[in-house]
């Protein structure tokens, strides 16, 4: 099959709403979205706490979290694999090679991005708002809702960045998901598999969807920064 035929077959899959194709896209999106939501719920308070408290070792922790943003997805996958494998501490859950394992792996990848970005956003805002908020008796953790809300544009950008990282990675979900057909097969793992099998239309079709997703995320980020500029002055 030549490349031109592969492209037209790929568009056929997309336009024809091929059920197998849609299943893969749907699984990918639900795994990544769940991971981003969990990471946001856990990461924003954690980042805010890190921004507003002072304790020995805080700087080292910040460096550590920032460093984790660059954690290779394959290594994250390996760590989650070890934890979830039968002899691992959470092996009794029986989650290895399930979508839940993929959610955990992607959460591990997204969490540092959200914690680090929340920390720096909240810390900057706090230094600017500090006196006004203390004047209003909003000290310590009582200031967090105000700071999170006023950092909403930067935080939304962080969520989109996290979503982008998680949806594009292949190593972690491959290791902990196992790439089982119509169960843990995502867009990225399918592309890797189908390409090596020579089924280019499916790989290309998924590739096109992934690229479209990336473009959409960037468009959102751009729009968010425009909206942010209206408020940030």
């Amino acid at each position, binding site marked *: 099959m030549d490349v031109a035929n592969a492209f037209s077959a790929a568009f056929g899959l997309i336009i024809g709403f091929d059920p197998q194709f849609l299943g893969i896209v749907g699984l990918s999106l639900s795994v990544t979205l769940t991971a981003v939501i969990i990471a946001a719920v856990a990461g924003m308070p954690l980042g805010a706490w890190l921004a507003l408290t002072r304790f020995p070792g805080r700087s080292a922790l910040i460096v550590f979290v920032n460093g984790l943003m660059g954690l290779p997805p394959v290594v994250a996958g390996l760590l989650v694999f070890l934890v979830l494998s039968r002899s691992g501490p959470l092996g009794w859950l029986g989650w290895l090679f399930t979508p839940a394992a993929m959610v955990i792996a992607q959460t591990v990848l997204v969490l540092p991005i959200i914690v680090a970005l929340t920390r720096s956003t909240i810390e900057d805002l706090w230094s*600017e*708002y500090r*006196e*006004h*908020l*203390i*004047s*209003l*008796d*909003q000290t310590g953790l009582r200031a967090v809702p*105000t700071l999170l809300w*006023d950092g909403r*544009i930067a935080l939304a950008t962080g969520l989109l960045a996290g979503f982008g990282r998680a949806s594009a990675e292949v190593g972690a979900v491959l290791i902990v998901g196992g790439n089982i057909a119509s169960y843990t097969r995502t867009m990225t793992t399918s592309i890797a598999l189908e390409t090596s099998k020579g089924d280019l239309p499916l790989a290309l079709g998924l590739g096109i969807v992934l690229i479209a997703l990336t473009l959409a995320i960037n468009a959102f980020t751009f729009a968010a920064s425009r909206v942010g500029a*209206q*408020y*940030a*002055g």
Partner: protein
Amino acid sequence: MRGTSSILPLLVEGLVFEAGGRRLVDAPSFALPAGGVTAIVGPNGAGKSLLLRLCHGLLTQTSGQIRWGGDDGRIAGRKRHAMVFQRPVMLRRSARANIAHALAATRAPNASAMIEAALARFGLADLADRSARLLSGGEQQRLAIARAWALSPEVLFLDEPTSQLDPGATRQIEALIASLAKDGMTIVMATHDLGQARRLSQRVLFLNRGCLVEDAETSIFFTAPASPEARAFIAGELLW
């Protein structure tokens, strides 16, 4: 004095604030009764802003006392003194939402009525839905004063409220301050603008190197300063 219904008079006694081994506020003592505009003047680094921050509770003194009436400056749990900063802190929200936030944070009653009243009184009704951070310097300072006014404080601390503004905006803010004082609000303002102190205040606290050198009626301070420092400061007005 109006018993427990007022946080005034404020009594400051031997207030000391040290940072980095240096004594920045050196034991001023004074009483602040209700009403009028008190100007805190003095050269840069005299401790004017620090004194306001200490009184407002943003900083904790090293020693000495700040004694408010009521329940330590509060009545029924609500702080009855407010502060406006040299560079107004504008939240990343609309002008209206900035006022609403302050009222919500302090659990003020009748918030929605107060918001509209504040916008109307300070000429901000047309700007209410604009992003606060995109307003001009004068509009931002007006909003900061409106936001503080909405909290219905007895005492309003102003830290160099016009130092970043052009003459037109300065005149506007001065008129607002005068009208607040006329309504009975007690105003304490730090300023390096002696003309402003002369125009607005009835009392001057002259600080130099953290010490309260002179505490006098404004007319007396400017016509017959008692201390050589104050004489030099007034004479050197043009140098600053």
